């Protein structure tokens, strides 16, 4: 266990509780399919944190505290986890306080990413809460001297038939259950669920609509001062000279900091810090060598970067006879573009750093900051405090590094660092540019008898862990070097996520061309490689279907074996009205399907677009999504995520591209990097959830991005005959027709 125990001298109820765990043995109830990856391991995050009292504690006054190492990113995970715990504990959700990612208080669940939260934390909490209730029931039964089935319970209180009552808190009497969680204990049957799987309003929304403090940006601590960093004007810039003295004399400026080409100001007021930073930028002189690609067209640019060939699928025999087709698809660099630029507060008091951060991984961040500062990990506490949606590895960790550096320069007081919009657009780790190439052979009957797919991709994971992955660390006088990224293995993958189609392909080869070094920083953007790979594969499936003279849906169904996949495809088609669709001028329909990572949620999307070639305008008139994510804990949360994913992906697909020249990033604000506005949001979106009670939770946060992109491309092709393979499908491209 890595976290500091708050109460090391707990009494252990091991013996008493242990004797009770034998009572209930209704078969194994592992909450995830056993796969070669997790065979023999505890389910979910229990493998990393098996102790029950790390997850749930109940005070003597019957207040329940649930701990999760996951973080609320706006995906509603706090509410969903609350529902899981409340369901198994059989208490009202309002009785529970949920503590999220804090290196001093919660389990280490790594990153909140990859749509793992329900699978990791939800699973662990489900078992921990189930066990806790079992233990409590046993304690109550013993206290009442009756059999457990004779008791009733309601919201944390057991009651005997004669009216005697005992609260959970009274039963534990201030002790905590230092037991290893036993996942073989039964969990509540989904048919009897009253909290999980039901609509529950999100616990964080009321504060957000009434101006209550909700974000790290809202933190106000006593004596807090404000920092702003002046970033170099270009990625390759070298600082020649800077007159710091003039800036130090500006009103409110407390300190001007320089370490190498890391430049910052600390001021007593926020806007004064903003102005001082602008003044500091004006007096800095830089050398600006060209360090970025001269040719920014994605295909030649990506192809030019060195790649290591990494085969991830080799099945059957190549070279079958038939008609062969090839295609190549590209995606540009794209931004997370969080609405609230990244922010962190850090304070150094008596050698202890406290950092309030919206990082997706407080534990890895802590390790990186410790290396950056040259201090012990124990000297740093990272507390997750919600930021605006991050959609992956944005600048949250970078700003935390800025904050600790400035806290070290101004010890004692909390230092708040807020990135400006230009900082976020210019310096966040980008979603990488990618290139795919596919070749497939159809036999006389229109079946796919050969499949060859290559995906060239820069890194999708340069998250800290290592200090060199923090932006400021690379600008210091003694800079840290970024880690050399390695590809994540399948089935998760990184650039090769979803590069293996979910279709049945008897002869197939898939190669991940991993590119570990490129002139720009790239990292995880929601769905990682899945967005480009599903775009490519599902566009190509349509192209093949057309070549085979078959309806695109029928073509896919021929090659899908998994009945759950078949059902989402059928459901989406039915709800869209695919079979009865009447094509009208300027409009067309498109379809796409994927199972995220080939092991998470299933998502099929059918949509209709209206295309105006003269202006290049594409409008989505309606979109229908069918989703299977196993057992649904919070249906509304899933719908929100899928709908949001469709709209976000529509924005990436129709509009978004980071532009740069040889020296600098050109897309520094919303004017230069437009995203979807209300006028272009689809007219209607419908999400159908196929609930599968008892099936493992499957992550949904990233399931709709890839299929949306392909469905749009396919619909445009249907609407006006234009088959576009290079993202974004923006107005200029629609006007030009290529």
């Amino acid at each position, binding site marked *: 266990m890595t976290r500091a125990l708050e109460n090391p001298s707990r009494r252990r109820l091991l013996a008493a509780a242990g004797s009770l765990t034998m009572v209930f043995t209704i078969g194994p109830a592992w909450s995830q399919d056993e796969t070669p990856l997790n065979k023999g391991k505890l389910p979910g995050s229990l493998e990393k944190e098996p102790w029950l009292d790390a997850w749930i504690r109940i005070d003597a006054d019957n207040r329940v505290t649930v701990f999760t190492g996951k973080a609320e990113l706006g995906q509603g995970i706090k509410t969903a986890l609350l529902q899981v715990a409340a369901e198994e504990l059989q208490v009202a959700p309002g009785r529970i306080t949920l503590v999220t990612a804090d290196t001093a208080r919660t389990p280490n669940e790594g990153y909140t990413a990859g749509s793992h939260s329900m699978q990791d934390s939800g699973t662990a909490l489900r078992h921990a809460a189930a066990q806790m209730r079992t233990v409590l029931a046993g304690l109550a039964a013993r206290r009442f001297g009756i059999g457990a089935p004779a008791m009733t319970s309601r919201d944390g209180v057991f009651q005997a038939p004669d009216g005697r009552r005992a609260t959970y808190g009274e039963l534990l009497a201030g002790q905590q259950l230092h037991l290893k969680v036993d996942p073989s204990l039964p969990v509540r049957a989904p048919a009897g669920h009253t909290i999980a799987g039901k609509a529950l309003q999100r616990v964080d929304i009321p504060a957000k609509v009434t101006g209550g403090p909700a974000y790290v940006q809202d933190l106000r601590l006593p004596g807090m001062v404000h920092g702003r960093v002046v970033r170099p004007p270009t990625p390759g810039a070298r600082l020649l000279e800077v007159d710091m003295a003039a800036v130090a004399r500006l009103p409110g400026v407390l300190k001007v900091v320089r370490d190498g080409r890391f430049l910052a100001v600390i001021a007593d007021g926020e806007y004064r810090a903003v102005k001082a930073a602008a003044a500091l930028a004006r007096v800095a002189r830089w050398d600006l060598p060209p360090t970025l690609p001269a040719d920014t067209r994605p295909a030649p640019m990506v192809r030019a970067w060195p790649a290591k060939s990494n085969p991830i699928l080799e099945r059957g025999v190549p070279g079958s006879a038939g008609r062969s087709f090839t295609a190549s698809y590209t995606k540009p660099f794209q931004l997370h573009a969080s609405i609230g630029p990244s922010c962190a507060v850090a304070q150094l008091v008596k050698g202890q750093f406290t950092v309030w951060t919206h990082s997706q991984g407080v534990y890895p961040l802590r390790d990186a900051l410790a290396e950056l500062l040259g201090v012990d990990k124990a000297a740093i506490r990272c507390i997750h405090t919600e930021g605006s949606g991050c959609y992956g590895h944005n600048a949250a960790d970078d700003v935390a590094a800025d904050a600790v550096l400035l806290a070290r320069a101004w010890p004692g007081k909390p230092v708040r660092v807020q990135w400006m919009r230009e900082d976020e657009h210019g310096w966040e780790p980008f979603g990488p540019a990618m290139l795919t190439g596919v070749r497939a052979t159809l036999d006389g009957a229109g079946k796919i008898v050969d499949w060859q797919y290559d995906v060239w991709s820069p890194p999708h994971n340069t998250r800290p862990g290592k200090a060199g992955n923090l932006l400021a660390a690379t600008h210091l006088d003694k800079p840290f070097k970024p880690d050399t990224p390695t590809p994540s293995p399948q089935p998760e993958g990184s650039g090769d996520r979803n590069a293996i189609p979910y279709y049945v392909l008897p002869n197939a080869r898939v190669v991940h061309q991993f590119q570990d070094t490129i002139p720009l920083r790239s990292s995880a953007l929601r769905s990682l490689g899945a967005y480009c790979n599903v775009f490519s594969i599902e566009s190509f499936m349509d192209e093949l279907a057309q070549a085979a003279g078959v309806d695109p849906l029928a073509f896919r169904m021929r090659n899908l074996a998994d009945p759950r996949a078949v059902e989402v495809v059928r459901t989406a088609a039915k709800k869209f009205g695919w079979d009865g669709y009447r094509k009208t001028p300027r409009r067309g329909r498109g379809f796409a399907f994927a199972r995220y990572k080939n092991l998470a949620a299933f998502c099929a999307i059918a949509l209709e677009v209206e295309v105006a070639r003269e202006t290049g305008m594409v409008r989505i008139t309606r979109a229908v999504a069918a989703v299977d994510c196993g057992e649904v804990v919070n249906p509304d949360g899933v719908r929100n995520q899928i709908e949001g994913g469709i709209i976000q992906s529509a924005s990436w697909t129709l509009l978004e591209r980071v532009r740069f020249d040889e020296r600098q990033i050109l897309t520094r604000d919303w004017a230069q990097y437009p995203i979807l*506005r209300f006028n272009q949001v689809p007219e209607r979106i419908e999400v159908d959830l196929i609930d599968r009670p008892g099936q493992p939770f499957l992550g949904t946060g990233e399931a709709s991005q890839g299929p949306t992109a392909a469905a749009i491309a396919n619909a445009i092709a249907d609407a006006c005959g234009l088959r576009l393979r290079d993202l974004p499908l923006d107005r200029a491209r629609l006007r030009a027709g290529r």
Partner: protein
Amino acid sequence: MDRATRTRTPKRRTRLIVLALIVVSALIGWIIMWRPAIDAQATLPAFDQASIARGQRLAAIGTCAACHTVDPSRPYAGGRALATPFGTVHSTNITPDARTGIGQWSEAAFTRAMREGVSRDGHLLYPAFPYDHYTHLAQDEIRSLYAYFMTRPALDAPAQKNDMTFPFGLRPLVAFWNILYLKRDPWQPSAGQSAEWNRGAYLSDNLAHCTACHTPRTRLGGTDFKRHLDGGEAEGWYVPALNEHNPSPIPWTREHLAEYLRTGIAPDHAVAGGPMQATVENLRLADPADVEAIATYIHSYLAKAPQRQTRAGMPGSLPVPAADDPDLARMQLGHAVYANSCARCHEVGREATSGAALPLQKAVALYDPDPRSLIHIVRDGISPPDGEPARWMPAFGAILSDDQTGALAAYLRRYGAGQPQWTHIEDAVKKARQP
């Protein structure tokens, strides 16, 4: 006839003559005003791709979409309200919809509309549609435009009601306007000018109809041919003169003008704003060689503007008002507005972010003969077309009061441009609030 009868005849004769004159005038007027309908065309002819492609490029030069496209999802469906001194006109649907567009128009009907401003059914079009410029187009160009428009997707969009000031709404009266201002004599190139200049002149004066805005109009709304490119007004904006009276504080080079026409921006010059924005959006889709030709032609007039010493060359912040300024209170208010609202962006100089913008001493709006364009820019901002990247100046209309806006304009005129003060700034601010 007896003597008594003969003494009453002169009065009656006068009445008869007057009546005859009225009838004859009405007859002549009717002959002038009436146009026959041209038969509806039931089926579309075939068009070849080359003609259509050419028509597309010509339509870009003609900036047809600037008036006829309101919603980018519905190109050429019309419905744009154009405020004129004679009332508000709405553009019509020029997609080939049979019922609400030009779907039943033959090439002859299309040509007559382009050259004479007459609709297929014979009613006269208001000269807000610049047929008095298109009238000089070569027939093969009209044919290509016809091919392009008749092959656009048909959209259902009925014409909207116009709101004209009496009597200017009476369409037959336009016939008299045409007598005065519709010059049908063929366009002639200028001997002694290059082929590119002449191509630019042909495009600019006719298809691109630059003079429709950039040349002043008479009281009756016709082009004042004697004052070619001497400036004008459009939709409440001042339209700059492009001749020796051009207000730009920094002289235009031909290259920068061409860049501006294609992209809406050139170094050291303000971005295209107001009605010019739509023009640039269209020109960027035109044949680049044609845009270069227009630049060559227009620049030959711009180059006549004398070199002036202006504040544009003076770097740095705009100054604090002089203590002896006769209008000190207003100047101090204007300076405060400038320093607190504008300087944050406009004193940085133009960089990639819109938060670093052109220093205002270089902004042409400050040098215009009246403050209308400046006031519109401040109130409405300049924003990119939907979903397309460009620079963005935010709108301050709801942020600054009328007093603050007027004071800002006055301050910028004196301390930004160093030019003689504008009159009637407050009236212009009030007028800009009206839709």
